[in-house]
């Protein structure tokens, strides 16, 4: 199990500090949540980890690998997967194809074998298809297997997004607001999936979420961001008692 450490990361967009001097350690096997008001820099942190942004200063390490300047596809190959906040699915393809795309790096046949499509290519496709089917089972997406993703309901698309990240077979899963815009039942479903992921796959999860009730219930550890700075870290109880956190969320007396 690998630890993700973020050391003094600063991210600047032309004079505006999205993140300033953020440090946190993500322990393996736990659900770590990152919370904070709008614009606090939660998604920026995830973007830095998954390689879409590169920190202006500071360092991100995953085990002994530096992620600071890695591209998203390099980060993915290290076993870090991400579900996006605003749906970033392949909307013209079926659920099955979306998930098969997540097996892209596992399909190790060459161009010629793909062209002829007997033997290795066919076998690997079937094997990975079986893996994908496992994830479909896990995320209860069976009825939508062959539907075009763009035509599915929002809640289902969100679930496909998580399923696709899971299909990458990650050790570290970044979930960016998986419950945004959902009703209470759908939220309960997602929470159940997150608990299952932790229990059955032993995946480390970083959760960015606005629903404080959910976060307080399921997180092992919480980091609170405000204006790009960490204003509090700790177990849910510690964070709930933290003066600065209360101030950021509710305001001063």
């Amino acid at each position, binding site marked *: 199990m690998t630890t993700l450490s973020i050391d003094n990361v600063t991210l600047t967009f032309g004079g505006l500090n999205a993140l300033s001097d953020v440090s946190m350690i993500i322990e393996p096997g736990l659900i770590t949540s990152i919370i904070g008001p709008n614009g606090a820099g939660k998604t920026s942190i995830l973007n830095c980890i*998954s390689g*879409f942004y590169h920190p202006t200063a500071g360092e991100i390490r995953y085990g002994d690998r530096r992620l600071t300047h890695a*591209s*998203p*596809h390099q980060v*993915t*190959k290290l076993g870090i*997967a*991400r579900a*996006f906040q605003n749906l*970033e*699915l*392949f*909307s*013209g*393809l079926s659920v099955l*194809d979306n998930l*098969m*795309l*997540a*097996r*892209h*790096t596992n*399909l190790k*046949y060459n*161009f010629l074998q*793909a*062209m*002829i*499509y007997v033997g290795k*290519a*066919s*076998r690997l*496709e*079937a094997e990975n*298809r*079986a893996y994908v*089917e496992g994830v479909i089972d896990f995320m209860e997406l069976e009825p939508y297997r062959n539907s075009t993703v763009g035509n599915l309901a929002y809640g289902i698309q969100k679930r496909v997004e998580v399923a*696709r990240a899971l299909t*990458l077979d990650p050790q570290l899963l970044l979930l960016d607001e998986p419950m945004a815009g959902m009703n209470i039942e759908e939220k309960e479903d997602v929470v159940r999936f997150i608990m299952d992921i932790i229990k059955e796959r032993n995946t480390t999860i970083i959760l960015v979420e606005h629903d404080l009730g959910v976060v307080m219930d399921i997180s092992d550890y919480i980091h609170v961001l405000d204006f790009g700075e960490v204003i509090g870290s700790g177990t849910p109880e510690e964070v709930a008692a933290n003066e600065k956190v209360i101030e950021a969320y509710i305001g001063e007396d």
Partner: protein
Amino acid sequence: MSTNRWLATGNYFTSYQDEQRLFFTHLDRTILTMFLLLLFVWPLLFTLSNKYMLVIDNILIAVVAIIGLNIVTGFAGLISIGHAAFVGIGAYTVASFSRTLGDSHVIITHAWPLMIVLSGLTGAVFGAIVGLPAMRLKHLYLAIATLSFQMIFTWTINFLEFFNQGQTISISRVFWFTGKLGRKDHYLFWYYVLLVVVVLSGFMVRNLLRTRYGRCLSAVRDNDRAADAMGMHPGLTKVYAFGLAGFFAGVAGALHAYVYRGVGFESFTLHHSITYLAMAIVGGLGTLNGSFWGPAAIITLELQVETLAEHAGQILPSTWNLATALKPFSFGLVIVLFLMFEPRGIANWWRIVRSYTKLWPFRY
């Protein structure tokens, strides 16, 4: 599969390898085999005049080119307005051999299958080079980059002495096992070669499309941010799409050079690029069978319009010059009509017909 696959009314898979099949029922397979057989056999039964044989050859050449264009524009979603230039690259590969070694050198007349593959590879290399801007540019900006390649291509051909400044560079008739091809057999011979090439490329692309090499194309089309997160390099994937498209264009170009027994720049202008794009749109972007419908429809239309213009020219005063006006007019009209009423192209009609016959005689 235990059920009788001749009488199968639905798809009953029992393994994932079953689901990979190209033909779900024996009937599907039989129909396609019969159709292909018919395409190979009909020239034995009756002969067409050279004029119409050339039209058919033209359609098949365009099919190969459109398979390539569909890969880059249909599947990978990168608009290419320079496809005729890639076809030209293939044709001029053969032509440059003709210029340096003479137009009836053994390499050209005997090793023509090699020349065709070589032209394809040259096309692929140029495709990949022209595709390099795709690593940074998107949408219309990329389209302009491909347009500029088209311009550079015509300009280069027109000004280089080596390429005869765009004038025709001749390529002699090829040899088959029976000896040198005669005037009469020429188009028929290339019809068979083209048919083999089309069938091979059709199956090749069909196979690619159900593997990671095909899926990655649709991935960068739909969402290249997410494609990046799936572990593929989106920029290189786009370059690969251009390379693959360039390969098919190059093959089409070499075939064009051999069928016409000459290469001149006027077959590879911007006008042709737009025509290719129109064929892809009319056939159906992002579908493999659209690559067959589009060229067939557009070239048949051109032929009909030509005959129509001839007849009309006899009735109407010659100063109206209908023949030159009617062709671009009908061409433009067809594209507009398709974009308005059937943006998914003829391939969509094919899909509707297929699903209808599946259920017939039941309505739902």
